[in-house]
């Protein structure tokens, strides 16, 4: 009896989480202008999407920003994560972690004020910089946890056997924490590509990203074109999450 109840509540939770997504995906193939009733299958909305220059431009911007931001924040975050692991500093953890806890709207507003104060024209660059800023902390945490799971004597053993500090890092530490670094990069990418709040504050007039574009379309009317772009975005994120989970800490051989 209680087992059935557990199964039922489990199904209910998953339905609550995923049914709306299923609806979005299904209606992206609906041969009707309205998200109201099922008429028939069509690729029409995907064709509309592909000829929508504003939308494509926004998607291009989003990809460019996400790639740049995840790349830069992975390099900086790995360095920060290594510093967190290697040196027992008091202030550094607070500085790295705080942006994760501060409400996004606060980060957005303060970045806007900051960019205005230093006279930076709002646009792609300001979005990239703000995305890097909030992604670094996430990467640092993932990398640090990977490092603290590593036997501390491994890099020492490399030095002992004739490796310079740089060789020890490149040949031993780096391969061992690589899954953490890649997972951090993917996390940064997914955080960046669907960020709305911070982007909204730091985008200015010229540059638009996918989430901003979708939001501005919804203000007029929800056409199935929005469903189509959402479906594509969902597929991309899903793919990245699967890749990231494959690279979870226990995936390395021999441990």
């Amino acid at each position, binding site marked *: 009896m209680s087992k059935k109840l557990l199964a039922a509540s489990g199904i209910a939770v998953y339905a609550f989480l995923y049914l709306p997504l299923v609806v979005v995906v299904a209606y992206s193939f609906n041969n009707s202008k309205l998200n109201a009733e099922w008429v028939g299958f069509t690729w029409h909305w995907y064709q509309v999407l592909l000829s929508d220059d504003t939308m494509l431009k926004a998607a291009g911007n989003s990809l460019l920003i996400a790639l740049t931001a995840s790349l830069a924040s992975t390099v900086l975050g790995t360095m920060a994560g290594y510093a967190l692991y290697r040196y027992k500093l008091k202030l550094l953890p607070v500085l790295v972690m705080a942006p994760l806890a501060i409400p996004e709207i606060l980060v957005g507003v303060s970045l806007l004020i900051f960019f205005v104060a230093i006279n930076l024209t709002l646009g792609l660059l300001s979005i990239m910089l703000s995305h890097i800023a909030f992604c670094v902390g996430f990467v640092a945490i993932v990398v640090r946890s990977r490092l603290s799971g590593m*036997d501390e*004597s*491994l890099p*020492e*053993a*490399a*030095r*002992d*056997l*004739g*490796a*310079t500090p740089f*060789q020890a890092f490149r*040949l*031993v530490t780096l*391969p*061992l924490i690589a899954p953490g670094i890649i997972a951090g990069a993917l996390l940064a990418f997914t955080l960046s590509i669907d960020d709305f709040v911070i982007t909204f504050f730091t985008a200015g007039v010229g540059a638009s990203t996918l989430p901003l574009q979708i939001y501005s379309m919804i203000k007029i009317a929800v056409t199935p074109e929005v469903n189509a772009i959402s479906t594509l975005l969902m597929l991309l994120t899903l793919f990245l999450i699967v890749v990231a989970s494959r690279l979870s800490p226990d995936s*390395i*051989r*021999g*441990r």
Partner: protein
Amino acid sequence: MALLEIRNIVRRFGDFTAVDGVSMDIEAGEFFTLLGPSGCGKTTLLRMIAGFDSPQSGEMLLDGKDLASIAPEKRPIHTVFQSYALFPHMTVAENIAFPLRMRKLGKGEIGERVRQSLEDVRLTDRGGRYPGELSGGQRQRVALARALVNRPRLLLLDEPLAALDMKLREQMQLELINLQKEVGITFIYVTHDQTEALALSHRIAVMNGGKVEQLDEPSKIYDSPKNRFVADFIGTCNLIDAEVSVAGEEKMVLQIRGLGEVAARNPGATGGAKGILALRPEKVRIAAQLAPEDDENHFKGRVHDFLYMGDVTVYIVEVGDGVHVEALLPNSAAGRPRILAVGDPVEIAWRYDAGTFLDG
């Protein structure tokens, strides 16, 4: 000139002095052991020799050259870590090849030496495996092979057998002795296990509180401990408070409260000195009745308690007025695991030179 000369090494961590003015010479070809309880400074000293840590003062000379300015990767010293520290993302063969790759040897030579090395440790068929797929004993052998493949001047071993079970440990001890003889490389071995130290070493430095308490051959450490700590830490030992009443050239008479006069070997104490009598239980004869012999201390007492250990039985005998002396009896008589019961009257005896007087 000694291979490694250690001069007045001091290492402090904040208020704690881990290594407190240690000096020792380690000869080429020696199996040298640093023995002591955890926190005695033995591992810190080993890390400084390897170059992972630096002393605040003092110096270390390898072949007469100061090690202070030499980075760990440049020292002809390799380490076998307690955790083995095998690289989990490399195969056994790649692990062993690592030090050779760092020296930029040719591919052909690396392959040949790795093959030879795998053969030496009887792991020829395991070269392609990852460390995670090996047993504890095999990992141990890979760690040894990797540390020896470069022929270092000095091999440091940090409790390398601690993670193995007892049977395997004994087997590995024999392998280590033979290996060291074969390769002729100087070993510095760190352990807290005194039987391991006695079994393996040419010389042992017993450390405590960052200082060397005694540095000697295993039999000297065991038979003639220099002080109370060494006597107590190595093996089991009767430690009985005593005062010197007559100090002769080689022999002495000790006054022990509750027991009376006891003859002992004089290591150089003078009359009136206070200290302890150190007496190994296996050197005490015990039986229901003992014929007295020359130069022996002889006492009558009662069995206070006993511990049956299988191969031997340890008897705690009460003699005189509440003095307890431990005596060891091998259980060699078949079918009779013990011959004495608690409360039985018993006699004990030991030659005067079985006991040592220790100051303080």
